[in-house]
């Protein structure tokens, strides 16, 4: 095992500059961790050879679980014995990524004791990520985590660890309690999280408002994004103050409104709320003058994915307005219907968004028992080819199963 921190002229380049560097961090860990030392060694080698040295490891996990551990072996175990096993462990993060210092210390202690000491806080999936675990250390890590109240997250063809923005805990724009919903879904879908049974992964991500700080519309199979259905709250005095302080309201606020529903006459701001698409733009620019309405809830969208194989998809609207109220049974019933259909008819490695593209949104809605709505069409007002009445009639006639 490497006793010394290896010479890494290529990696050292990545320490230069005023920004944080993962190389600096791994070197710091390498003082105590032979695994981190060998990691530096293999990385430098990869930079020199332009070849990766990681093998896929398909069978590692903890007893009973099918998710949470992503197997990795080195293809150079003799040269770098410290990283001959280097599995990744995903740990279910607390909603909104809130910790006490104590909890963080507990996690770090567990990881120093059993693994490489390297973490990723957080992975882009949301989870806490422990990088670099030997197979025989997996169960002990899991046991210590369980004792500390932590559970593994998702990986493989399962419900992935649900994640959310900080929501009402810190953000004045939150239109519903993202933290409560995330916690509830995490507990409700325990079996689906730990026992992969789907054609492919399924992600829930919750954002408190249309700013969508967890980028759920692009990354979650089910995106639940806060919104409101009454009028934007407005304080004309504060609007005036923004204008007096030099904000060009006509150009920079009204001019960029995608609903084209704002008018500023130099004195008073008017919003035609029925044309507002609730994009948050004006509210973000003038937070003291404007805020979301009072009748708040969430829009439920379905079908996005970040691609590895085929093109990216964004979620499309499933329920334009939903009141998230515990125990959220209405949503769970709908999700179960969708999961059943997708499990029955979906192809291997087909995300639900791709499945919908294949069978058609109309057929999908029919199967899960939802009525088509104008909100499900990207530009209903501008699309002259959408005739709702005829759509119904046509479908009633020849709705054969394929």
């Amino acid at each position, binding site marked *: 095992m490497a006793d010394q921190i290896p010479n890494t002229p290529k990696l050292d380049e990545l320490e230069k500059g005023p920004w944080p560097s993962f190389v600096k961090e791994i070197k710091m860990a390498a003082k105590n961790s032979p695994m981190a030392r060998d990691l530096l060694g293999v990385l430098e080698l990869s930079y020199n050879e332009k070849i990766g040295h990681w093998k896929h490891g398909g069978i590692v996990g903890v007893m009973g679980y099918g998710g949470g551990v992503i197997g990795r072996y080195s293809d150079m175990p003799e040269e770098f014995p410290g990283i001959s096993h280097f599995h990744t462990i995903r740990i279910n993060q607390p909603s909104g990524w809130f910790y006490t210092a104590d909890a963080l210390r507990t996690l770090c202690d567990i990881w120093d004791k059993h693994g490489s000491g390297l973490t990723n806080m957080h992975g882009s999936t949301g989870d806490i990520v422990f990088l670099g675990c030997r197979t025989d250390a997996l169960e002990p890590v899991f046991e210590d985590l369980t004792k500390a109240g932590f559970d593994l997250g998702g990986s493989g063809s399962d419900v992935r660890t649900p994640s959310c923005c900080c929501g009402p805990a810190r953000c004045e724009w939150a239109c519903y309690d993202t933290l409560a919903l995330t916690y509830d879904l995490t507990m409700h879908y325990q*079996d689906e999280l730990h*026992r992969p049974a789907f054609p492919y992964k399924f992600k829930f991500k919750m954002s408190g408002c249309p700013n969508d700080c967890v980028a759920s519309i692009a990354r979650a199979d089910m995106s639940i994004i806060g919104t409101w259905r009454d009028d934007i709250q407005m304080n004309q005095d504060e609007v005036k103050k923004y204008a007096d302080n030099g904000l060009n309201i006509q150009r920079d606020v009204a001019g960029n409104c995608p609903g084209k529903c704002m008018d500023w006459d130099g004195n008073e701001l008017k919003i035609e709320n029925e044309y507002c698409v609730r994009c948050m733009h004006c509210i973000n620019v003038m937070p003291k003058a404007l805020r979301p309405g009072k009748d708040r809830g969430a829009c439920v969208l379905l079908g996005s994915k970040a691609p590895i194989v085929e093109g990216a998809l964004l979620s499309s609207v499933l329920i334009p307005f939903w009141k998230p109220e515990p125990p959220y049974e209405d949503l769970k019933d709908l999700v179960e219907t969708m999961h059943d259909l997708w499990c029955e008819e979906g192809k291997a490695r087909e995300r639900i968004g791709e499945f919908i593209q294949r069978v058609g949104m109309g057929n999908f809605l029919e199967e899960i028992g939802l009525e088509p709505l104008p909100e499900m069409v990207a530009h209903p007002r501008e699309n002259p080819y959408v005739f709702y009445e005829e759509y119904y009639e046509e479908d009633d006639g020849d709705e054969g199963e394929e």
Partner: protein
Amino acid sequence: MAKTVEEIAEAMLNMVTDAQGIKKLKPTDLIKAMRELYGDEADKKLCKGAIKELVNSGKCVYTYFGGSFIELPHRESAAND
């Protein structure tokens, strides 16, 4: 007569054993096969329970290769040990 979890688990284990090294079976493959074999005698909940039973008892393990599969415990070809 509805099947028991044990009966389904055994039928699944036979399938997995026969397929080992030839074809990787997904949990949905197992469930669909049981539904074809036993129809309403094996509902989805029962099938899920059977998979849980197989994995908890260590007779089968979850594996991952792009998607998730149910296999007999074996030495991973990528493993270094």
